[in-house]
């Protein structure tokens, strides 16, 4: 028995932390915050040089062929520094979905380019209802001879302004159940397609609305079998849960470290505020939540190596728990900083905002708790 990271994973964590400390500093996060695009192609190129874009891509398709625990290790570090990077949207979510749903030839065609960083992709799933169950996918893809025509819109699409291709979930048959949902790979510049940025408080990550106005799609742009995409989306949801939970773990660790460092330096009443039990206990409570959550994250990540009920249950557990832990930790971290933590000039609010945004992304804690209940057979 050994419930721990292996040597390679420890090394990945260390090298990623050192790399990101140099390449994704808080000053970069701050510069991109106000930038209309909010993307650093230089950083993205360097991340691709590390081979990380292909972390989850099998070696046969030019990737590193690693698993979700390895990805979680890297995502923990990316989340720690709020690295402005499409790693989550493209290298984890879109790449996983293509791996799950794509035909052999589609994987041969797409995965090597995703692995090398030559192209970026993102998943367009949610719509106006913001529902992750089958009723939330209503965008119709009507068959017209050998083609499909899409009209409608998608919301909350990550990094749609920099992704070269969108993996769009659309209905190819009537009904609102799990059957009849298909996936299409649609390039960003397709005629009839338009993007609107969603103005949100977390500007470290950009979300978009995509409108489809009679967008024509060729049949070979359909990923996998017609009407059979739902189970692949579910499996990708599990991957998203683990990935976001990993970001939360890293972000929470970092926010607490910032708060503890501040508490050791800031003096009031003639002593450092970290010597007051009220402050010490706030920090200890955060630590007592963050430390065991790492074990939950590791378990959930490892459970993804098999696709079964336990993988989904563990993923939802991690997403529900880590999202709330991150949000609570950053709340306390802002409070420990006092007035300075509330200012625009201090970096703390970047983590505070990302935490709350992560909590909502791919299912709220309440959504995932209900999923745990259902998967537990209650």
């Amino acid at each position, binding site marked *: 028995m050994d*419930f721990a990271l292996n040597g390679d994973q420890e090394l990945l964590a260390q090298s990623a932390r050192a790399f990101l400390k140099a390449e994704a500093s808080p000053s970069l996060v701050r510069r991109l915050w106000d930038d209309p695009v909010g993307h650093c192609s230089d950083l993205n190129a360097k991340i691709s040089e590390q081979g990380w874009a292909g972390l989850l891509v099998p070696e046969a398709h030019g990737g590193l062929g690693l698993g979700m625990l390895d990805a979680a290790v890297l995502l923990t570090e990316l989340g720690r520094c709020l690295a402005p990077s499409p790693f989550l949207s493209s290298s984890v979510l879109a790449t996983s979905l293509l791996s799950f749903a794509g035909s052999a030839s589609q994987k041969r065609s797409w995965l090597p380019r995703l692995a090398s960083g030559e192209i970026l992709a993102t998943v367009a799933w949610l719509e106006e209802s913001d529902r992750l169950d089958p009723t939330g996918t209503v965008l119709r893809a009507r068959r017209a001879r050998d083609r499909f025509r899409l009209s409608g819109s998608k919301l909350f699409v990550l990094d749609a302004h920099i992704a070269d291709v969108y993996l769009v979930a659309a209905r190819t048959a009537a009904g609102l159940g799990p059957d009849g949902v298909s996936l299409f790979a649609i390039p960003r510049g397709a005629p009839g397609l338009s993007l609107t940025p969603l103005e949100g408080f977390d500007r470290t990550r950009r979300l978009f609305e995509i409108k489809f106005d009679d967008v024509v799609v060729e049949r070979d742009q359909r990923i996998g079998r017609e009407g059979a995409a739902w189970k692949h989306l579910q499996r990708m949801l599990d991957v998203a849960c683990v990935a976001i939970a990993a970001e939360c773990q890293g972000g929470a660790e970092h926010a607490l470290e910032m708060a503890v460092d501040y508490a050791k330096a800031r003096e009031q009443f003639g002593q450092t505020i970290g010597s007051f*039990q009220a402050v*010490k206990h706030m920090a200890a409570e955060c*630590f007592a939540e963050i430390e065991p959550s*790492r*074990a939950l994250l590791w378990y959930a990540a490892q459970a993804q*190596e098999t696709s079964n009920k336990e993988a989904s249950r563990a993923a939802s557990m991690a997403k529900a728990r880590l999202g709330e832990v991150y949000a609570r930790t950053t709340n306390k971290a802002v409070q420990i900083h006092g007035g300075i933590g509330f200012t625009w000039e201090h970096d703390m609010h970047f983590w505070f905002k990302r935490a709350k945004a992560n909590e909502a992304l791919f299912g709220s804690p309440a959504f995932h708790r209900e999923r745990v209940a259902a998967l*537990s057979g*209650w």
Partner: protein
Amino acid sequence: MLPAIPAGVDLAFSKEDEKFRRSLRTWLRKHLPKRHDEIDGGEDLNFEGPAQIAAAKKWQRTMHDAGYVAIDWPKEHGGKAASAVRQTILAEEIVTHRAPGLIGQLGLHMLGPTLIRCGTAAQRKRFLPKILTAEEIWCQGYSEPGSGSDLASLRTKAESDGDDFVVNGQKIWTTTAHFADWMFCLVRTHADAPKHKGISYILIDMKTPGIEVRPLVQMTGQSGFNEVFFTDVRVPRSNLVGELHGGWAVANTTLAHERNMLANPMRTQQLMADLVRLAARRNDNGGKVSRDALVRQRLADLQIRVDMMKYHSWKQLSDEIHGRPASVGGAISKLVTTELNHEICATALDLLGDYGPLVGRSPHAEDRGLWPRDWMFTLGMVIGGGTSQIQKNIIAERVLGLPRGA
């Protein structure tokens, strides 16, 4: 016990360890007393009456004869030198089979390991065998009315007089003192030294003249712990463990054991499973309460934390087996697990409505009145063995490096 998890993180125990588990299960099924709740004092060692005490001692003796007592002790002292994995398996199976707790566990988990580390050869020879067989039951004399969380401020004094110490003072919250044969006790032997440096660790025969034990009634209505008064109690100097005035360090060798005793993740899983079963069979407003959206949210939130602490314990076990430095995993487990246990019981009472406050004597009580009893008892465990606030101080100071308080 462990779900099937793919390679990568290795959660499998060895074939030998699984064989140990199988034979332990077989043994437990065969030897468990039929009405074993009647000899079980519960986690608070709350044994009532000579018959229950005798039955509990017999159960420990039966476990010992089969080689399942103090398996962590070295072989030369009657243990099995068992690995952390085997200890975990034993603890898991004991809880899973709802086997009675061992009446001698303070001796087994606290004094025994202390004597093995710090005692003399004569002390080990005299005391260890009877700890194993439950022939002698031990209680712990640490807390005093004025010294709870600030244990090192204790004032019960032991003055040298010839070959003896003469002990005067009072201990409190002394579990099992009303039937214990011996007490391991912290006393002040140097009044002028800094508070941590004037304490000694001595062993007191509870039959010595001058000792008076008065039971304290807990909020559960039961009397598992006591006050113990000492008036000119003579203790031979040969009963000193470790150095004179060096008792604080001696006691600290086993304080971590106490935290671990109070935070068994398997016990938490069992409580949670009982709560889920309760929710599945209770009806409220015409439907099963487990179908209620808010109840499902609460249950899932608890289940997530219960599972998380299970994985946390795997990580701790794993670090121990592979010799990686221990973090403050124990303090976190104590803090989180004891509060979680209480929350699980409180949730059960919420689901029970008007049935919640009914105690075991009531024919209408659910689960024989265990929920209200455990709801109270588990709050005691949040306090005992170092309060939640003390655990937070430990985490803040030893891990986060925040300044030490008073």
